[in-house]
């Protein structure tokens, strides 16, 4: 391709520009015409649409499917929890005042849950190690009645939502100190360790650790189990099993607990028990 002459060279360059642009543009136009005009025209009849709407849908200007309005169910959902992780709730938590939380905690919470969130009463949960989202979810559920406890329900009902958030954030601050415990290897008998770490696929039981260790990727309100009090853990699993506790979204924990034997409940509670500090 020896084209020495500058005039000839520039004519050649121009031809390349022209034909390359035409080819690339042509392919683009053909693709767009088929995808955005021809196909919608063929498909519109099945969707009972006029041509213009079909084209607008194909281009993505008008909302797409379903073309037919779907029947809307009249069944009323009965949410087990009023907590929805929308921007408002996240803002409340993000802007909560931990000092205010500390004051409320000093007056109300420490008696049972300890100053650092470590409960000395084994029937009550330790809060250290839990994220503020996990604590907020439970406090909100007590407040709304989704979860019931003779002491917690009246306490939570007295507090405003911002106050709940400030307490959650206050206790959530101990999470970082306790997080290191989450990934450690806990001692336990082999069967229980396997159940906790791998689940039992034959019974469709997921691993506890697939949600309940920090960073596992489960729902953000999932509590961390490591270091939790034995009696409390066992009692909660039994409450889910019998249906006494029902504030688990999508029945996840009720479904799981129903499949656990009494021995497994005790074994898992023992496995996750630990001493935080």
């Amino acid at each position, binding site marked *: 391709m020896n084209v020495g002459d500058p005039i000839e060279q520039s004519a050649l360059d121009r031809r390349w520009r022209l034909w*390359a642009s035409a080819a690339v543009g042509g392919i683009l136009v053909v693709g767009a015409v088929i995808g955005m005009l021809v196909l919608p025209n063929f498909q519109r009849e099945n969707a009972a649409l006029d041509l213009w709407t079909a084209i607008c849908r194909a281009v993505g200007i008008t909302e797409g499917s379903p073309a037919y309005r779907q029947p809307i169910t009249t069944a009323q959902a009965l949410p087990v929890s009023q907590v929805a992780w929308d921007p408002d709730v996240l803002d409340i938590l993000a802007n909560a005042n931990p000092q205010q939380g500390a004051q409320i905690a000093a007056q109300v919470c420490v008696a049972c849950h300890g100053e650092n969130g470590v409960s000395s009463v084994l029937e009550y949960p330790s809060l250290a190690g839990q994220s503020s989202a996990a604590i907020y979810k439970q406090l909100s559920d007590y407040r709304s009645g989704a979860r019931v406890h003779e002491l917690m329900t009246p306490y939570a009902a007295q507090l405003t939502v911002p106050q709940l958030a400030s307490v959650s954030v206050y206790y959530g601050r101990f999470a970082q100190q306790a997080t290191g415990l989450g990934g450690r290897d806990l001692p336990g008998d082999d069967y229980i360790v396997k159940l906790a770490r791998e689940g039992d696929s034959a019974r469709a039981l997921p691993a506890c650790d697939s949600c309940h260790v920090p960073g596992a990727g489960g729902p953000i309100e999932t509590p961390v189990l490591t270091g939790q009090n034995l009696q409390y853990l066992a009692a909660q699993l039994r409450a889910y099993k019998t249906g006494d506790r029902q504030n688990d979204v999508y029945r996840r924990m009720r479904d799981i607990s129903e499949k656990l034997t009494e021995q497994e409940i005790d074994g898992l509670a023992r496995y996750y028990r630990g001493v935080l500090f």
Partner: protein
Amino acid sequence: MASIAANDALPVPAAAPAAGEGLRSRRLVLSHFWLAFAAFLIACVLGAWQMWARSPLDAPAHTASNYFRSVTLHGVAMAYVLSTFFIMGFGYFVAETALGRPLKWLKAGWWGFWIGVVGVLMAALAVISGKASVLYTFYPPMTATPWFYIGLVLVVVGSWIWCGVMIAEMSFWKRDNPGQAVPLAMFATVANAVMWLWTTVGVAAELLFQVIPASLGWTQMVDVGLSRTLFSWTLHAIVYFWLFPAYIAFYTMAPREAGGRLFSDTMGRLSFILFLLYSLPVGMHHLFMDPEHSSGFKFLQMVLTAFVSVPTLLTVFTIAASLEIAGRMRGGKGLFGWVAALPWKNPMTLATGLAFVMLFFGGGGGLINMSYGMNAMIHNTSWVTAHFHLIFGGTVVIMYFAIAYAIWPSLTGREFASLKRVRWQLWLWFIGMMVMTIPWHGLGLEGQWRRVAAFDYTDPIIATWGPWVIVSLIGGMILLVSAVLLIWNLLPAGLGRRTVQVYRYAEAVHPPGRVPAALNGFALWNVLVAVLMLAAYGWPIAQFFADPPPQAVIHHMDRGID
């Protein structure tokens, strides 16, 4: 002598850089290659364990969190470290050897390397700590620790420096050699650099405006549709970024190593330009099953995707023709006699042949993936995993090996101690990849899903998959053996006597004289890429701003929501 490469031991010409220590970028190239292959070896170990974990056999340390940690590290090491550092190292080598003069911006290359190293360490430590098990794809709302993303951004910044060096070296050369055709190897390398700059725009926007602010806790919600769209901008072109070195080897190394000439230099230039054009406006074929885009744009991008097959078909034709020239020059006769006459003991020739076999299967699978309708059958199944292992892990990576083998003597000044061991390594890689991915394809068609840590083999349907997963595991083990062999071959322990070699590229049957500006630079093609991107991605991205959809709550892998 079964010479490695038709790369004769030449007397060193006075004007050319002396081999080995004469190559100014020698240390830079070797540093890149060794980092790439070290990451590769680690990733191979993890990959084999992952196959074990998914099989019915009990794998050690098999938990879901270990599995996803491992998959993330495997993906990051293979897709970001092996590929990027190999491509950068090879680019510096090509710039010096194809242009026949030392790099002017060598120091910038070292800056790029060290920035990349810092980034790799940050990302790797983040993954190992378990705070970044988000796989190597950036799909919010799940987000990892910011160290992971900032580390990977540094790798990209290092690669941008490489792009700058490549483009600058070509410009300097063109200024000094007016009217001359840029050597094909360099033209292709710069095509890749230009494409990579375009490619990274999508993921850079996603990381800088969405993911990193989210991972730092500055934002609480994220528009996942927009994230997925921006990532799709990068996701397909990145594959072609990885693929370029393989094609550069097909065009500018294999014909000569087989003892022949390149059938057409122009065809090579056209292929690389077509890759630049049609790698980018096509990423939406990864989103065929996503609800956020309309069918019209999906169809348009499917049509454009179909055109990516054109440069591949051009290449298969041109390289087959070039090899036929070589075979006939070596005395091959008849319709297929030239195939038998090829020097199959030469690693580059062998690798090219094996790569083409894998390209046949992988490319065929790819045509199914890109078809809007058929995609629905295999979406998110093992079929997809099999496809990209066969194409990237197979066709492309085997050519990375071949390139390393071809240029190693000129980099180290030593020949390989055993070419037989080199061939064994290539054969094992090919066999391992086929044994691993063919059953994977089948299982994908049966619906086996990807991105899961384990299968419930007590389920009678899933139980029937078990034997085939074990076959894949055997393939994975063969691949691991091959990876260890590769490192052995490249280490000083695998090298033999001293040699002085200057790497020479394949010459075309008709060497290019003066070529049209369009085949010697990228100005025109950049304009056309911009037009294509505007048409293919303009409205699909603008719609998120014109009519903002509901956003998702960010889920931090590394902490609660505090």
